[in-house]
């Protein structure tokens, strides 16, 4: 442990606490576990409301909330070189050795990776979502991703399906892409201490009620399940534009006493909702990984899910019932899950999940990726430009131009304020943290 090199990692994404979601928790838990492995981790994100400047989180995780306002869907306005001065300062101040960007539609992440490459840092990119190839939005996003990944040292995807997708979208060689799934904090998602009675079966749905999460599928499935299985109740947590449709469905089929709608559930209360049910129903139409399924399984719930994206890779076959996103097939799958229920012991399932997923495993695998990224040979500007040029007839030249301008801007900044003049930030070592490092294997990161 002691001979191991300590890395100084900068995590960049537009998405971070106080926002909640798959990317946010991935960055948080990964950072916590990397801290426990003895590395230094700094997070860079944009400001959220009043939360601007430098904050410290659990175990001395330093977070820079850069005062850039989010423009659209929590992403900042793309400025190409506009963020270079502040990012250069942070990179030099924190003596960063590697930059790790998250999520393809985070503008901040793309810009940070671009600046880091300009300044000669090794960069790793994690893709958390899936994209198609047909619509204008995807075509645009895929070109941006191609630009970023043309020069990224390594890339990480959260599932094998996501890897296939990323390789196709960006044209990056497949051997540069690693698959490291998300995990779940099993200590936070423990099953109910006592087994629920099986007289009444409770099916839990927790998701944003939007089209992409398959809310329309729920509208078709719920009344049919209620008709076929008189002892089934539904609990729906989440809010969104499709909530009205679900409420209409409830009125239309007079299911007010059997379908409970909770509205938005804060992340801290997700467990308490999950443990009140037997079956977790996920109706997403697209999903790269789906952490919600892990949380449910960790609470000992049997999962019924649509067979989309990376979902089939997430759990062993005896812990999940998969169905095509068709109401009839979904209803059958729920029926199958109900017959499987007597053989499911939540405590056993929880213990299995503990073995299958852990953030420490994720952190160790990510650490290996960092190790390999840092041993990659340095490349001159010309070598790198030739890679951008290969990105397309017009796009290639445009990418080169952007990189050259960025490089010149960096040279100018170095003249204006040499690296030596930037004050270095001292490393804060929390007293209780040192003791914890040795026993990290038994510890679990917990969100405060």
């Amino acid at each position: 442990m002691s001979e191991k090199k300590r890395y100084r990692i900068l995590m960049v994404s537009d998405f971070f606490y106080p926002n909640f979601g798959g990317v946010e928790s991935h960055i948080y838990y990964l950072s916590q576990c990397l801290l426990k492995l003895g590395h230094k981790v700094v997070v860079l994100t944009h400001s959220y409301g009043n939360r601007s400047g430098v904050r410290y989180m659990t175990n001395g995780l330093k977070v820079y909330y850069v005062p850039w306002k989010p423009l659209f869907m929590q992403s900042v306005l793309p400025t190409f070189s506009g963020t270079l001065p502040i990012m250069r300062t942070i990179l030099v101040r924190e003596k960063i050795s590697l930059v790790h960007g998250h999520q393809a539609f985070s503008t901040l992440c793309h810009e940070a990776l671009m600046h880091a490459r300009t300044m000669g840092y090794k960069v790793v990119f994690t893709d958390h979502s899936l994209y198609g190839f047909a619509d204008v939005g995807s075509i645009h996003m895929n070109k941006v991703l191609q630009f970023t990944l043309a020069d990224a040292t390594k890339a990480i995807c959260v599932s094998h399906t996501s890897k296939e997708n990323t390789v196709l979208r960006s044209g990056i060689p497949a051997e540069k892409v690693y698959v490291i799934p998300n995990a779940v904090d099993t200590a936070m998602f423990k099953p109910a201490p006592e087994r629920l009675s099986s007289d009444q079966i409770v099916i839990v749905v927790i998701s944003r009620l939007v089209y992409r999460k398959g809310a329309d599928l729920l509208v078709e499935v719920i009344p049919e399940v209620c008709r076929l299985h008189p002892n089934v109740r539904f609990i729906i947590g989440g809010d969104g534009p499709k909530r009205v449709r679900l409420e209409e469905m409830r009125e239309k089929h007079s299911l007010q006493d059997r379908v409970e709608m909770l509205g938005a559930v804060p992340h801290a209360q997700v467990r308490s909702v999950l443990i009140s049910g037997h079956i977790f129903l996920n109706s997403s139409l697209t999903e790269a990984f789906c952490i919600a399924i892990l949380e449910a399984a960790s609470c000992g719930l049997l999962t019924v899910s649509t067979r989309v994206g990376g979902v089939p890779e997430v759990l062993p076959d005896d812990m999940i019932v998969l169905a095509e996103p068709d109401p009839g097939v979904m209803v059958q799958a729920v029926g199958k899950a109900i017959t499987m229920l007597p053989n499911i012991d939540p405590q056993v399932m929880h213990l299995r999940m503990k073995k299958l997923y852990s953030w420490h495993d994720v952190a160790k695998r990510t650490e290996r990726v960092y190790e390999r990224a840092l041993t990659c040979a340095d490349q001159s500007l010309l070598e790198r430009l030739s890679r951008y040029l290969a990105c397309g007839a017009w796009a290639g030249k445009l990418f080169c131009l952007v990189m050259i301008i960025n490089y010149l801007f960096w040279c100018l900044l170095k003249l204006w304020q040499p690296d030596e003049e930037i004050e270095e930030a001292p490393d804060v070592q929390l007293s209780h943290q040192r003791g914890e490092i040795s026993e990290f294997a038994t510890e679990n990161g917990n969100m405060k």
Partner: protein
Amino acid sequence: MDKDSSPAWKWRKLAYGGMQPGFDDNYTGDSFLEDMVTNANVVKRDLCKVILDSVSISQYLCTVILVVLVWTYTLASTISFKSLLLLDITLLISGFIVLFLTARMISLKLFAQYILNILYFIIGLYALSPIYHTLTRSISSDSIWALTTMLIVLHLFLHDYTGCTVKAPGSLTNPTISSNISLNTSIIASVLIASQLQSRQLVFAIVLFSLQVFLFAPFVAFCIKKYSFWLYLWLSLGVVGLTLALVYRLQGFLFVILLGLLVFITFICPYWLTRIQKYKFEINGPWDEAKLCFDITE
């Protein structure tokens, strides 16, 4: 976890259970991209069919040019109010006859409702024609023609050539926003032109004529096309021929331009379209957003 018991662990496309023994995280197996489907929905286009389909565009283009010709002749006082009114009535009656013959919707109640609607429409138009008459009195006629030309070009660009914006009652699909904009631009253009005329009667007759064509010609053409494609083809060729003859009488230069445009639309564009088909590359796979197999009724 039985994976440790067997020495030769076979790689599987799974995310759970940590790193698979003997395989790195960047391992790319044989199954990589095996679920990818390329060009599943690509239809090979037939040049002949595309040319026949392009007739719809030529036909509608010529219909619009015919309307513009009527506008010019009316502005030049070549067509009198009476002949214009006669034209309106002929168009209305022939349109109804075509609908009766092709659409097979001969219900007396529906017919009565149609007549009533059209009566309301005509009365409203007649009452409004004095307003239209003085609408653009203070604007130079050059500006009006320039604006009208732009509106008509926009109309042609956004027009829905595959169907019709004005639907038969009880139709399921709603018209798209661009076809609605197209319809509106054509109506504004008619009103603008009408406002340049000398008398109220002429204003009334010309707006009625333009609206009849812009609102109902695509619908009538659609009905004929559904009834018999060959009939539609011959009628379209007739419209194209008539337009060419009238434009030739008006000005030789315009005739050459129109002829060139028609050749471009009917022959060059379809050939072009079939040529660029080979660049089509469609990728589908498990990462695609699933499509719902039922209609969402809000």
